[in-house]
């Protein structure tokens, strides 16, 4: 049986599918019996989703950069 501390230590590997088959079975078995770790994993997923859902900071001067790059691209063909 894994301890809770061990479960938390390998939680990222569990979430990323990086555990071996045996490791995955051990983790699933622990989660089956441990409400606290189930909550932990559920909230880890929620934390991942929150990082993903954070609004993107706009690129400063994206228009100027795009204009510059496009101009350089066109200049290339003239050479």
């Amino acid at each position, binding site marked *: 049986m894994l*301890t*809770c*501390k*061990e479960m*938390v*230590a390998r*939680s*990222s*590997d569990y979430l*990323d599918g*990086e555990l071996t088959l045996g490791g995955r079975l051990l983790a699933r078995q622990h989660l089956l019996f441990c409400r*606290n*770790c189930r*909550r*932990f994993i559920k*909230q*880890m997923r*929620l*934390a*991942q*989703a*929150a*990082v*993903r*859902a*954070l609004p*993107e*900071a706009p*690129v400063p001067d*994206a*228009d100027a*950069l*795009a*204009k510059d*790059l*496009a*101009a*350089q*691209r*066109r200049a*290339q*063909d003239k050479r």
Partner: protein
Amino acid sequence: MTGTHETEFLERLLAGEQQAFKELVDTYQSAMRAVAYAIVGSRQADEAVQDAWLAVVRSLPGFQRRSSLKTWLLTITANAAKNRYKQNRREVLLDDLPSPHGSIGDDRFAADGHWRVAPFAWHEDTPEALLSEDELRQCLEHTLLSLPQFQSSVLILRERQGLELEEICNLLEISLSNVRVLLHRARLKVFATLEHFEETGQC
């Protein structure tokens, strides 16, 4: 972006269409910056991204589409950053920094490995509900900014850009086990921040 849509998009880029370059910048700049940031740190990341954009324009006619556009752009960025980098980054790779709300450390567990302080049940169960609180969003951004450069980049590339761990290893030239360690540390800090906020109602 796949198939015909990408072919069409590449044609617009090759024609030097400004709107296409705007889309390119808006879509990929933050992933490119995350790659550059991991390799050269904050002081030179913007310059490295600039170098990368110039290289992209130069190499565009030769882009063979053996990889996705995104992978191609990020590989160019990693190379541009490596050309700029001088200090020995291996030394800073696994250095850690304290996070505003800590992590989920050993003190959360009893000697027998059980939770000593069990995870607090959060009030919200969707990311939208969590982030609807401005203060929480700022608090989370503050934690992300406090992460050491490799942790920050690995977290962004994985969670926000959806890159495979293998791809992150290749771009940043670090081992899979290091990517896993960095990602885990970053996630626990994000977790601790959200937990702290949900428990106390403040940052």
